[in-house]
């Protein structure tokens, strides 16, 4: 009995270890490769530790690597992404919170239908809207600009942020809203003083969710932006596809890590809220 238990544990840890290595190995290869010199890469073995550490590839990826005809590295793209992702995340999260608040606590005739239609937005494939969206951006004069990208991401994000907030707010008892109304609070005061302070877990979930979605988006970035408004994902693609005489693996790896770093940082800093927030609704019933 005891032995069997032990055996089972060993097997379990074995599987877990294998899975961990399986997922960590690419990251390991990326990191080590990015700090090796090209000579070492050519000579050595893919998974060997670097003999000497150099950050040349990183500085090159950041500042001087060629992405098409320009050779200014990823820095410009990176800041484009930052300029795009911060407003897009904040706006789509705020609108989602407001929508969720209205659809759960201030129901009106047709609010269920409205929610169903918004929900529909979660399932629309991006490709379907590319052409109409390009046309719309043209009309608004937002084509090929960071503002246009922000607009697209906000419009697309609203569906899922609304869904998240609405489902969370359904769990807040209606009597709380009634009590606040009797206390004389109106729509906004109830939202800011009663509902929003209770929303920390779901706000965290939505912020992380939206940040990851928007930062990692490639399709909208490549279609709706050009030149100096392109986001990091497009920059990375350009960098990797620009043909140079030799393929600089260390630069490619450093660039890929730079592109992925913000989402990793966000998840590490706020990840515990993410798990907590996803289960919070369930616990409250």
């Amino acid at each position, binding site marked *: 009995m005891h032995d069997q238990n032990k055996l089972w544990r060993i097997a379990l840890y074995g599987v877990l270890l294998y899975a961990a290595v399986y997922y960590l190995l690419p990251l390991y290869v990326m990191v080590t490769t990015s700090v090796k010199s090209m000579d070492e890469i050519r000579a050595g073995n893919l998974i060997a530790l670097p003999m000497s550490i150099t950050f040349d590839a990183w500085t090159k990826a950041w500042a001087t690597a060629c992405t098409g005809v320009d050779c200014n590295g990823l820095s410009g793209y990176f800041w484009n992404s930052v300029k795009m992702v911060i407003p897009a995340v904040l706006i789509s999260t705020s609108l989602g919170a407001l929508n969720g608040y209205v659809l759960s606590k201030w129901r009106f005739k047709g609010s269920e239908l409205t929610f169903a239609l918004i929900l529909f937005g979660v399932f629309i494939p991006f490709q379907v809207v590319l052409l109409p969206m390009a046309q719309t951006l043209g009309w608004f004069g937002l084509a090929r600009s960071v503002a246009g990208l922000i607009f697209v991401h906000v419009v697309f994000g609203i569906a899922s942020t609304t869904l998240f907030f609405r489902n969370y707010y359904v769990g807040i*008892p209606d*009597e709380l809203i*009634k*009590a*606040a*109304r*009797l*206390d*004389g609070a109106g729509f906004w005061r109830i939202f800011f003083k009663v509902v929003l302070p*209770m929303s920390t877990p779901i706000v965290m979930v939505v912020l992380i969710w939206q940040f990851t979605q928007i930062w990692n988006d490639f399709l909208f970035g490549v279609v709706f932006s050009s030149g100096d408004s392109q986001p990091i994902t497009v920059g990375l693609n350009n960098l990797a596809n620009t043909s140079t005489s030799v393929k600089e693996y260390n630069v490619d790896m450093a660039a890929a890590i730079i592109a992925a770093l913000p989402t990793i940082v966000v998840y590490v800093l706020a990840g515990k809220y993410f798990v907590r927030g996803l289960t919070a609704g369930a616990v409250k019933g």
Partner: protein
Amino acid sequence: MGALAIKNVTKRFGDTHILKGIDIHIDAGQFLILVGPSGCGKSTLMNIIAGLEAPTSGEVQIGERVVNDVAPKDRDIAMVFQSYALYPTMNVRQNIAFGMETRGVPRKEQEETITRVSKMLQIDHLLDRKPGQLSGGQRQRVAMGRALARNPTLFLFDEPLSNLDAKLRVEMRTEIKQLHHRLKTTIVYVTHDQIEAMTLGDRIAVMKDGVIQQFGSPEEIYERPANLFVAGFIGSPSMNFIDCHLAEQGGDVGISLQSEGGVRFVPLLDGRRFADRLGQKVILGVRPEQIEVAEEGEPALECKVHLTEPTGPDTMIFTQINGKEVIARVHPRAAGRPGDSMRLKLDVRKVVLFDPQTEARLN
């Protein structure tokens, strides 16, 4: 002076009629109880009084003012909810102050009110705690404190005690009654607990299916229930209902009751009133304490004791009359043991008769 008047109020949600013409008038300072089974529309009526929901038709008047078009916050009311509805992210002090802040009450006055209210309810040591750190009874007090801070002309309580355990419920019931004596503010109080209804109310409205079955003082409701429903709902243990026929014997109109010891004719007080119903079926309603142990030599029903339930001050005797199980409440010393025979009599001055078809009271 009228404090609250509800005039022919109806409420529909889509096709379902929840309230079907409610009429209630109470005077200032009265304690009105709305009592009825779950789902009969008590909370809906309460929300209409509070203005949280609009009536489909009818009029609500608070004081001298028709408030149909007045916002909840301007109705000069305060409400205590069943779930307490305390703001979870605010501490007790902030919970109590929230309404005053919204209304722009000066800070100094807020402080005074919080001190007064929290002293009165003995929650002054809890002011810095969040609702999550309070026990059920403490939350209940805070919810009342929030209402008291408002100093309204009308208090609304929606089942405020139903989430408390039995002992605390009894304590809080007494406290609410004392509070009412002290403040003399008009209170509307929803409950489905008939003991709460009887002990607290000046006026009781018994509701069922969106209709007021009876509206009156606790004594009226208890002694002269308007129909079978009210009779069965109020009182614990419930009133006994015995099927019988009206008969005439020696010039008296009465009913015959059959127990395991034989048949007896029991003349009714003022029985001639039912002369036109002779031979018809009626339902006799008799409360457990209205079945008494007969004195030596008095005419009585010989009843076999099936089961006894001692409660301390009284003992419940389970027996059978006209084929129905009947409960009698007697003094423990007079109670027989299961299997014994007891001589019981009805207090005919108090028994009530119901029409089996309309279920309305006849006498």
